[in-house]
Structure formats: structure tokens, C-alpha cells
């Protein structure tokens, strides 16, 4: 079954059409690479899936349920990692995750256990300082931990590796391919080597439309044929 489906979604800001009749779907245990230049509409698409932006036409469903702008109940099934994750600087990572758990309505005992697991998974164990003193890479790790907290069926990552050094990038990608066992992942990026390393299916977004999509191998064959 598909976790995420977009059918004929369009979005314009003023007279400028950002997304034009976009349709695609992401299945279970898939890493879906969403590729495009800066300004191609990747972040806009993700925000629409999260119900943070209103769609002009079309429909988005998450786990079979339609997404509503403003009050998206479907967000309970989604974990979101923003491109520049920002958290409350006055909290420690554990406090922040506990706060997220309460907001997401996760049962306390389970949540504490889950936080321990996740902090280990993203390599933040033993870090007890406040988030305001975190580096970019540490924030990215905490971002993954908070996104995975509620065992989401779908993980949305907006440019998770763009601002990291090669080592940090590899670590983040390893975490993501580890997570794949439990959740589907929608990943936006403009770094093709990352895509090749972990994605199962990819789609190129150009001028608000899908220029090309398929599995990695299909796309490779297509590009070779094009010469």
C-alpha cells in the first residue's frame, strides 16, 4: 500500500505557478529521492504534505487519509526534518524530546524508553548541554531523533545533508538507511551521489512538474539512452 499519494496537486503564489499538476506516490519501506534545483518547489511540496501550506487544487493523502490545511491530523503519521532544523535553545535534547513526546501524545513510559533509543541511534548520548550551544550537525541529528519519535509511517527530510561536511553526510545517510526498515522516507536533495547511495525511487522536479521518475536503474537506463 502507498503511504503517501499526491494526485494532480497545484500551487501558485500570486501568478507564479510553483507546483503544476504534480502526482506521485511513495510506498512502504521505500526511500524516495526528490531532486530539483533550488526553488524548484521541493520545500513547497513538503509543506503542503504537512498541511502548512494550502493547496490550490488536487489531493494529498497520507496513509489513506486526506491532508487538511491548518489542522492536519495526518501529521501524526509523519515525521518531519526541516532543512534548517531549529529547536528551543533553552532546552537540553532530552527535555526537547520529552516535550515533543507530550505534544504528540505518546505514553510517558514508552516515550522515555524511545528517547533513550533514539539518542543512541543519532549519536547524541551523553550530550547534556542546551541546544543553543549545538553545532549544525548536532541539530541535524536531534532533528532526526525528534522526527522519528512517534514511530512515523512516513519520514520527510528536506535537504538533510546539504550543509554538512562529507563525514557528517555519510553518518546521516547511514542513519536514514537504517531507519528505512520501519518507515518510508521522502528525501529532497540536490546532491546526486547521496541519491544514488540510498534511494530506491527518484523523481526530478523541474518547473513544478515531474521531469523524470522511476527506480534508480530505470532512470540510469533512460539517461544512457538519451546519451
Amino acid at each position, binding site marked *: 500500500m502507498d503511504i503517501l499519494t499526491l494526485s494532480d496537486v497545484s500551487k501558485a503564489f500570486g501568478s507564479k505557478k510553483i507546483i503544476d499538476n504534480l502526482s506521485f506516490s511513495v510506498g512502504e519501506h521505500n526511500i524516495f529521492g526528490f531532486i530539483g534545483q533550488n526553488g524548484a518547489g521541493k520545500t513547497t511540496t513538503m*509543506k503542503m504534505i*504537512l498541511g*502548512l*501550506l*494550502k493547496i490550490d487544487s488536487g489531493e494529498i493523502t497520507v496513509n489513506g487519509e486526506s491532508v487538511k*490545511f*491548518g*489542522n492536519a*491530523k495526518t*501529521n*501524526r503519521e*509523519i515525521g*518531519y526534518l*526541516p532543512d*534548517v*532544523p*531549529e*529547536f*528551543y535553545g*533553552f*532546552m537540553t535534547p532530552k*527535555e526537547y524530546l520529552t*516535550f*515533543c513526546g*507530550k*505534544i*504528540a*501524545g505518546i505514553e510517558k513510559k514508552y516515550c522515555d524508553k524511545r528517547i533513550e533509543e533514539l539518542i543512541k541511534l543519532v549519536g547524541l548520548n551523553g550530550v547534556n548541554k542546551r541546544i543553543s550551544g549545538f553545532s549544525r550537525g548536532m541539530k541535524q541529528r536531534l532533528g532526526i531523533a*525528534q522526527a522519528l*519519535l*512517534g514511530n512515523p509511517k512516513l519520514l520527510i527530510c528536506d535537504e538533510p545533508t546539504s550543509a554538512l561536511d562529507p563525514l557528517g553526510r555519510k553518518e546521516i545517510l547511514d542513519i536514514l538507511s537504517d531507519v528505512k526498515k520501519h518507515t518510508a522516507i521522502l528525501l529532497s536533495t540536490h546532491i546526486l551521489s547521496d541519491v544514488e547511495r540510498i534511494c530506491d525511487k527518484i523523481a526530478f522536479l523541474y518547473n513544478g512538474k515531474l521531469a523524470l521518475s522511476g527506480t534508480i536503474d530505470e532512470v540510469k537506463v533512460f539517461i544512457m539512452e538519451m546519451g
Partner: protein
Amino acid sequence: MKQISAFIQKELLECMRTGKCIFMLILFVIFGIMNPAFAKLTPWLIDIMSDSFSNMGLSVEKVTVDALTSWMQFCKNYPFTIIILLLMFCNTLSAEYQTGTLINVITKGMNRWKIVLSKSIVIFAFWTAGYLLIFGITYGYNAYFWDNNIVSCLAFFAVCYYLAGIWLISLMIFMSTVFNSNSSVILSVGGIFLGIYLIGMLPKIDKYLPWYLLDSSKLLINDGSISDYRFAVVITILSVIINIVAAVFCFSRKSTL
């Protein structure tokens, strides 16, 4: 309910750890002490100056101070109190828009109206605590030095001034959901306040406006009666409710988080 309490806890933790809470606590204590202090010092200052005045050929009457002088000082300091509170909290939403911290909270399934409600509860609570502190300290000193019984309708006066603060805070919360930067929030609250102040210059309308509540200081010297303020009280309460509902409405439709 769980979401609201978690968010309120987060807000309180922020106020504690960023020093907002302690700063306002000490400041309000100082403001509370200053009211009777000013009243008490007035005759002393006049005494000192009367020598130089009499040299210039002016005669200075002996002034008497009592609890009323101190309460009048309370009214004069009131605008500073509320302005500082508004300045401390005008970034409550805009700081979160700018860093994008609310996106995480909303994508965790937090209902938007609960964010507005939690923030309102916290700011109202700070105002309530701060106001009680200032009022209590002033009242205590007044009782010690003079006699609070010489002023009339003190309780009603206190409620009026408290409500006026609640009204300004609710207006600020509404504006925080409309505008994205804290300077526009402060400017719009100031603008609306100025507008209402100007409308209040028109005869006969003034007593229907929230700001008329601050005229209730006249009650202390037995000028007018409580029933003069019934419209202003009702309209202020209605306006607070409308502001909060409008804030929830605007915030639910906001896409620039």
C-alpha cells in the same frame, strides 16, 4: 489538555531560563515600592526646595501626603508597567516565526488554537502575578504609613486597571498572529491604542471604550459612581474575548510560520 500543559510548561521554562521571569519579578517589586516611596518623599523634597523658593520670593504651602497620593502615583506608574510587560512578550510568537520552532511543534500534531491559548494563559498569568505584586506592595506600605480607608472603591478601581491590562495583552496576542515581526506588533498595538484614545476625545463615546477604565482613578476621590463604568467593563471583556477568538482564527490560517 496534555498538549496545552506541555506547551505552558515549555513557556514557563523559557521565562525561567532566559531570565525574563526573575527580571520582571524584581522590577515589579521595585515598582511596587516606588509608589509609596514617591508619596513619602514628596514633602521632604518640597522642604528642601522651599528654602530656595522662599529666596526667590515664592511661598510654599505645606503639603500633606496620605494613601491617596500613593495611589495616584500607582496610576502614574501603571503605563510603564504595562508597556514593559508588552515589550517583554511582544516577541512571543514572532521570535518563533523567525526561527521556525513552531513548525516542529505543529508537525507533531499540536492543534494551532492550543498554541495561541497556551501563550495567552502564560502572559495573562504573568500580568496577574505582576499586578498583584505591585498592588499588594503598594497596599501594604500604604496601610503601614497611612490609612487605605480614606480612598473609596479601591477594589473596583483595582479590577478596572487590571482589566485594561488584560485588554492590551489580548490585543497584542491578536496582532502577533497577524504580523510577523515584533516591531510591527508593537507599532500596531500602539497605533490601535492611539486610535482609540483619539476616538475617546469625542464626547459621549469615551465611556464605551476600554481605556475609560483608567478614569476609574476618579472613584478614589469619590468622583462619580461605579455604575458609570458598566459599559466600559462589559465592552472590554467582550473585546478581550473577540481578540482571542480572532487571534485563533488568524493563526489557524497562517502559512508563514
